[in-house]
């Protein structure tokens, strides 16, 4: 035992009971609200059940739901959209986030004020951020259309053109979450000892060399964690797509999460939605495991 025990064995046991008791409400909540629904959804994934066709599950469906989802062209489109939207968003957020972290690093009041303003998009409800961008990008009255009109830039049919609608979803994600990467990198920068940079400068490294050869490698673990956070959060986000494009036009901004939401909570096709969500979860679990291991390594270092 690491600590001296000022109490006798009996009262230590009583203490242990108290401490265990402290954790019980949280445990009950996790079991009731997370674990049980979790197992329930595994059950649903192998049931033939659409609420619109029957009030009760119609029986065991084996892997039928999974096969149905895999064969559904909308699912395939949604996977492609998700990969594209999340991929481009995360790359843009990392590049811009690192840039902004460097440009705002410092503790003068101006830089601190700028950092404060830059993180504001993160506290806005994603569903409200989506409606805000819907206004900005409206081709009739939106600010973006007006600005591109006066500057002579092309003014696409933002939300009714499939390619531009996807770009709009990406822009919204980048607008709202680049500050997250910035914050993480700012914290990472603060963890680099000044001596390391001094040493590099003494060795004759230019500012640019010092960034590529010294700072970036040191920041890499932190950046990787930020990439995984953003990748998962972006894949899982529903509200912003829901309010910005509602998955449209057509299926052009259906993401995996939006697809599952639509199946389950709009069409009440429970079995199929659960099967789709379990496939999705298998993928995210892999990312979470990688992140967990990486995270522990960073923690030890």
């Amino acid at each position, binding site marked *: 035992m690491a600590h001296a025990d*000022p*109490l006798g064995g009996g009262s230590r046991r009583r203490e242990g009971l108290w*401490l265990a*008791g*402290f*954790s019980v*409400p*949280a445990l009950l*909540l*996790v079991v009731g*609200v*997370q674990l049980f*629904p979790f197992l*329930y*959804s595994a059950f*649903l994934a192998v049931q033939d059940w659409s609420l619109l066709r029957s009030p009760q599950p119609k029986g065991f469906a084996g892997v039928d739901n999974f096969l149905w989802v895999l064969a559904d062209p909308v699912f395939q489109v949604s996977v492609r959209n998700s990969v594209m939207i999340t991929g481009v968003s995360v790359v843009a957020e990392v590049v811009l986030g690192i840039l902004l972290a460097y*440009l705002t690093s410092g503790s003068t009041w101006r830089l601190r004020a700028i950092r404060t303003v*830059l*993180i*504001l998009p*993160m*506290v*806005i*409800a*994603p*569903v*409200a951020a989506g*409606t*805000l961008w*819907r*206004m900005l990008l409206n081709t*009739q*009255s939106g*600010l973006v259309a*007006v600005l591109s*009109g006066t500057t002579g830039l092309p003014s696409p049919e933002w939300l009714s053109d499939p390619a531009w609608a996807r770009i709009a979803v990406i822009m919204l994600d980048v*607008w709202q979450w680049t500050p997250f990467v910035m914050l*993480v990198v700012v914290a990472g920068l603060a963890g680099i000892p*000044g001596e390391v*940079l*001094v040493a*590099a400068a003494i060795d004759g490294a230019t*500012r640019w060399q*010092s960034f590529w050869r010294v700072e970036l490698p040191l920041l890499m673990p932190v950046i990787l964690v930020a990439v995984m*956070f953003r990748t*998962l959060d972006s*894949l*899982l986000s*529903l*509200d912003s797509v*829901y309010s910005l494009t509602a998955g449209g036009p057509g299926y052009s901004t259906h993401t995996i999460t939006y697809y*599952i*939401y639509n199946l*389950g*909570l709009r069409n009440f096709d429970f079995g199929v939605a*659960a099967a789709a969500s379990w496939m999705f979860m298998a993928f995210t679990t892999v990312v*979470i495991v990688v992140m*967990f291991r990486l*995270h522990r390594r960073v*923690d030890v270092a």
Partner: protein
Amino acid sequence: MKEAVARADVRGVPRRRVDWISLLRWLILVIAVAIVVIPLTYLLLNSVKLPREFLTTPPTIVPSVLTPEHYASILSDPEFLGRFRNTLELTVASTIISVVVGTLAAYGLARLHVSPTVMTIVLFVFLFIRFYPRVTTVIPFFLVMRSFGLLDTVWAIVLGHLGITVPFVAWLLLIFFRALPFELEEAAMVDGASVLQRFWHVVLPLAAPGIATAAIFTAFFSWNEFLIASSVARNESAVLSMTVASFVTDKGIYWGPMAATSVVMIAPMIAFALLVQRFLVRGLTLGAVKG
């Protein structure tokens, strides 16, 4: 401080190039700030713009007259007021319960001398709950709430949120409690303080910043959350996040009320964020940044 000075020296560049580089730096920063501030200002302007000014060609950006009509219309709408009240109730209830239950659990876990394996599993579960696709459990949760007759009540949303916020709060405070020196508690132990007394008089005061962070994060989460709320609430217990997206109808988009509702939803969070910035950053980056 010495480090900061050393770093400033290294980051400095030869005198003559400084002007160009710092000019470019400030230019980029001004653009970045504009990209954040201009859309928010535009939203504010839209919320006080006359309906016909949304339809002029070329469109009106800065309204010619400021009209309170959109605010008047949503504030006189009993449905909107009900949703506003529900959102407040939801936020207050979920914040208080999350902080109490999560803090207790974190303290229990931190002091129970559980084996490293168990601790690893617990930490993994926390991370997993934070990141697994919630859309997986939303449908079963909907069914459970239906069978308990809780569908379309604020409590169903609160319960759904607690499933996420309690593990989050416990995670945050577990890190916090493990970093607290045990000696203080030991001293209290020698003086005969019970575990409850120690928790209340010694640990809680020290943990106040961590608890503040947890409470703030929970409040933001519950106020803004959409997926769980929209799946278990329909009419009676609907909340603001569901209203914001509801102005797009078959008959057209009601821009003015949509902007006014968005402002009502966003403005308090921005004001709150500016007030509690120090705590907020910690909550937003939990897990990505240690300590």
